[in-house]
């Protein structure tokens, strides 16, 4: 059995770990609220944006539609945007993203497509750069948390648009953790290019027929102006979802860690008390047998 001093030190160190994890939990909880508010506040913009895109896209003919809307017509090169965290200690958050990315790359490769990766966030890059070194086109860090600026996102969509224009890309997908609730996050793969036009377009056109819109300067120009913005908006929304998920995952993970530390402290304290009593008993026996021997 370990001696008393060792046990005492052990208990002390677990206690300080517990303090850290519980502080991290509180920080994550406070930030989570803000991140959730951010994610909710960004929704009106993206819903209005997609409503306009939907009504425009249903009018555009497939032949003349811009590549950002309809794709290039081919489907050989896929760019996968991977959103992970810059920091660890958030439970299965990064692990599930990494696993899904690997699976997605494999299944796309099996279909004979060329896959490239754009990593946003350090953790997934660190984990995947060994096996996918050749197909990672770029890495962005620091694009997350509670203060994501739209300008950072523009940088990402610029890369995508550049590659689309150069003909290096036919399809663009984004893989991220969707925020379901504080205890559940779901890995989601969305296709950014080509844009999937929602099925309730019929209802939309009825509405539009009742109130025919005028477009200034004209439909094609509006669409051309809108599509890059829409791309940024979608990425922005995904980043916000991912940030909220990260904080939620960290909160849960740190809550568990705090509880585990508590259990461990209880167990160690019990062992400590037992050994202390055992030591006292031994000492007493020694004294008594010494006295009896006289």
């Amino acid at each position, binding site marked *: 059995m370990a001696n008393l001093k060792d046990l005492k030190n052990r208990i002390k160190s677990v206690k300080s770990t517990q303090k850290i994890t519980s502080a991290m939990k509180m920080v994550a909880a406070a930030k989570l609220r803000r991140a959730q508010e951010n994610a909710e506040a*960004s929704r009106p913009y993206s819903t209005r944006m997609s409503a*306009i895109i939907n009504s425009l896209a249903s009018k555009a003919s497939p032949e003349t539609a811009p590549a950002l809307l309809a794709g290039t017509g081919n489907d050989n090169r896929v760019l996968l945007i991977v959103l992970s965290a810059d920091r660890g200690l958030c439970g299965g958050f990064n692990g599930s993203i990494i696993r899904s990315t690997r699976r997605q790359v494999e299944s796309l490769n099996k279909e004979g497509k060329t896959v490239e990766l754009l990593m946003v966030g350090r953790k997934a890059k660190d984990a995947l750069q060994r096996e996918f070194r050749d197909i990672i086109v770029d890495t962005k860090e620091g694009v997350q948390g509670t203060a994501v600026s739209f300008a950072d996102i*523009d940088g990402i969509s610029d890369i995508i648009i550049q590659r689309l224009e150069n003909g290096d890309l036919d399809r663009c997908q984004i893989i991220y953790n969707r925020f379901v609730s504080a205890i559940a996050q779901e890995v989601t793969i969305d296709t950014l290019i080509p844009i999937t036009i929602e099925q309730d377009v019929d209802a939309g056109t009825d509405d539009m027929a009742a109130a025919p819109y005028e*477009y*200034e*300067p004209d439909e094609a120009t*509006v669409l051309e102006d809108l599509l890059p*913005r829409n791309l*940024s908006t979608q990425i922005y929304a995904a980043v916000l979802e991912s940030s909220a998920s990260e904080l939620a995952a960290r909160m849960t993970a740190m809550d568990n860690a705090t509880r585990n530390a508590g259990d461990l402290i209880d167990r160690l304290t019990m062992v400590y008390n037992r050994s202390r009593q055992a030591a006292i008993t031994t000492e007493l026996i020694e004294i008594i047998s010494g006295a009896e021997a006289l």
Partner: protein
Amino acid sequence: MAETTAFELVTPARIMMAIDASMVVVPGSMGLFGAMPRHAPTISTLQRGVVEVYVNGNVSNRIMVDGGIVDVTEDRCTVLAERAVNLDNADRSDLEAQRQTANNNGNAREEEFLDAAISAL
């Protein structure tokens, strides 16, 4: 009370402003135009400029936007803009600080926009 149109200015971060206005003048890419109640449904792109919101015949709010899109129907007017600065409660030194940060980050687009916003104050 006179008829009003429901004006909303939405940025990616939040709904920046939502009021009932008697007229909204927006910097369309084909030139300024005013959106009043019962305006024909129009979707127009915007250029950098100032959105002026009129309530009861007076300008009540001025907002600098960096392009975007406006969706006008008979009873509402929604402006979607990536960057927007409310000129009524903006602080010159604040904007200048922001411009400095944009400059340090090499973000030319943001810097230009803030420049324009400062000179429109």
